């Protein structure tokens, strides 16, 4: 067995450090870009065309804060598990356990939602070709198992694949924008609803639309999960994450512009695949094919990145004995967290085959929101315990603590927005995390090797 590393004379297995900034970009944008192809448009249904744009930019501001905060902390805490490892070092074990669960739930639910979308998309195409009653199940199962297999076989191939298909999906949005701008559409852009029906449901509609506005960017923080597999974490992670959020801000604004201009907001608000539908409205077959490919690729890239991130978070928790240490195994040949990858497959399948899409998406958004809320006080504690002058950082974000405060305010607004539409799910989710926390505190923590948790060679925190 040649693929092992020796540390202190002891033979050890570790994840492979083979990734560059492009892979980090592909992981972050790959997870998120599907949000441009589906889901964001429900914000238009909640509050109208203008509310959709407000949600797009307000959520963009929220995620810019997330990207800035994440880039600074992750460039310093370079470990698989991302925000879980950050919480462990900066806040404490109970917070870390919860953050780990937020990550696994958010990504596994998103993976399930993507698989459902693959089935829906193929059903739509089959229907257009005259085939009715397509059984979506085998395609949903294949999407999850095929991508899990790719993840099982190695991270370099997985994220190189993501780089290619995410790039194609992004370029498809750019091409659609230019094609519509330069007259390739049979239907002209029409924004008269901005004047005739600016806010059909008032300002409450704008707040409600924020829930689905998050869908434009949900998951960009997933870049952190690659921390232990990038060649240069201090450089690659901030670079890939910041490039990712810039890409998404461009893609989100273009998506709103093209879709809102081509599709009346009443229809856009209920569309299953808005960009694909916009291409259908143009009447151009080549644009339609391109956007179908874009939708399929964005969906697969997202599911692929979600499997990567959920398994890393689960693996890290197993390695620290927050979960059974059996999950902390590395494959001796492929150097992937193979047990975690295999274990999470049936969980994703259960949600993909047994739960409705909007519920799955809402649970994913809620877990993500809880994670963003954690980032606000995590950032403040990080700067207080280890000020800028005390340890080396790959990136130092400006205007601290303003991004953390803005993020907290926007998270609070988003909770209210979710509560308006899915209050029961919000409460159910909170109950789940409270019960899990009690289990961890009163039972599981006794198995954790407490002295081994703090792995970063940092100086003693200020005031300790």
């Amino acid at each position: 067995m040649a693929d092992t590393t020796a540390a202190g004379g002891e033979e050890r297995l570790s994840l492979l450090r083979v990734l560059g900034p492009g892979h980090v970009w592909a992981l972050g944008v790959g997870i998120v870009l599907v949000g441009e192809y589906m889901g964001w448009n429900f914000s238009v249904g909640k509050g109208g065309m203008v509310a959709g744009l407000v949600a797009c930019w307000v959520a963009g501001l929220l995620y810019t804060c997330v990207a800035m905060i994440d880039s600074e902390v992750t460039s310093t805490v370079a470990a698989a598990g991302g925000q879980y490892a950050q919480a462990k070092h900066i806040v404490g074990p109970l917070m870390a356990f919860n953050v780990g669960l937020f990550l696994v739930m958010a990504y596994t639910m998103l993976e399930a939602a993507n698989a459902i979308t693959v089935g829906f998309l193929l059903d739509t195409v089959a229907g257009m070709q005259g085939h009715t009653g397509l059984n979506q199940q085998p395609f949903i199962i294949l999407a999850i198992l095929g991508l899990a297999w790719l993840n099982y076989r190695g991270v370099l191939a997985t994220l190189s694949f993501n780089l290619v298909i995410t790039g194609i999906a992004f370029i498809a949005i750019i091409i659609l924008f230019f094609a519509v701008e330069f007259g390739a559409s049979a239907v002209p852009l029409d924004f008269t609803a901005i004047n005739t029906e600016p806010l059909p449901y008032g300002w409450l509609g704008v707040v409600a639309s924020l829930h689905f506005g998050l869908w434009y960017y949900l998951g960009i923080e997933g870049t952190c999960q690659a921390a232990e597999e990038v060649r240069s974490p201090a450089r690659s992670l901030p670079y890939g994450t910041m490039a990712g959020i810039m890409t998404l801000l461009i893609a989100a604004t273009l998506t709103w512009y093209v879709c809102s201009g081509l599709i009346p907001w009443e229809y856009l608000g209920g569309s299953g695949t808005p960009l694909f539908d916009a291409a259908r409205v143009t009447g151009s077959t080549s644009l339609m094919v391109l956007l179908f490919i874009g939708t399929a690729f964005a969906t697969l890239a997202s599911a692929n990145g979600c499997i990567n991130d959920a398994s890393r978070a689960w693996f890290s928790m197993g390695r620290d004995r927050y979960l059974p240490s059996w999950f902390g195994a590395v494959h001796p040949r492929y150097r992937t967290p193979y047990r975690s990858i295999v274990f999470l497959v049936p969980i994703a399948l259960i949600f993909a085959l047994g739960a409705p899409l909007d519920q799955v998406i809402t649970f994913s958004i809620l877990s993500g929101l809880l994670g963003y809320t954690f980032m606000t006080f995590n950032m403040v504690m990080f700067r207080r315990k280890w000020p800028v002058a005390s340890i080396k950082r790959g990136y130092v974000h400006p205007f601290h603590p303003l991004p953390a405060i803005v993020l907290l305010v926007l998270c609070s607004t988003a909770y209210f927005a979710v509560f308006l539409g899915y209050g029961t799910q919000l409460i159910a989710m909170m109950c789940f995390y409270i019960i899990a926390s009690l289990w961890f505190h009163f039972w599981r923590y006794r198995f954790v090797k407490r002295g081994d948790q703090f792995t970063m060679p940092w100086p003693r925190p200020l005031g300790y």
Partner: protein
Amino acid sequence: MDIWNYLEYAAWVLSILFAGFMLYDTVRVDTTYDNELLTSSREGELELTAERHEI
């Protein structure tokens, strides 16, 4: 039977193959290698050996 029916069957077959490969390989690795070695990964090894968080 049209192309979509064949695609459904192909999806089932591929799913079984992918699942079979992962399960077979997991069992093979778990029975071939010592669990101590498989779970020997430690967080922060790079930081201890290559990077110094000092200014």
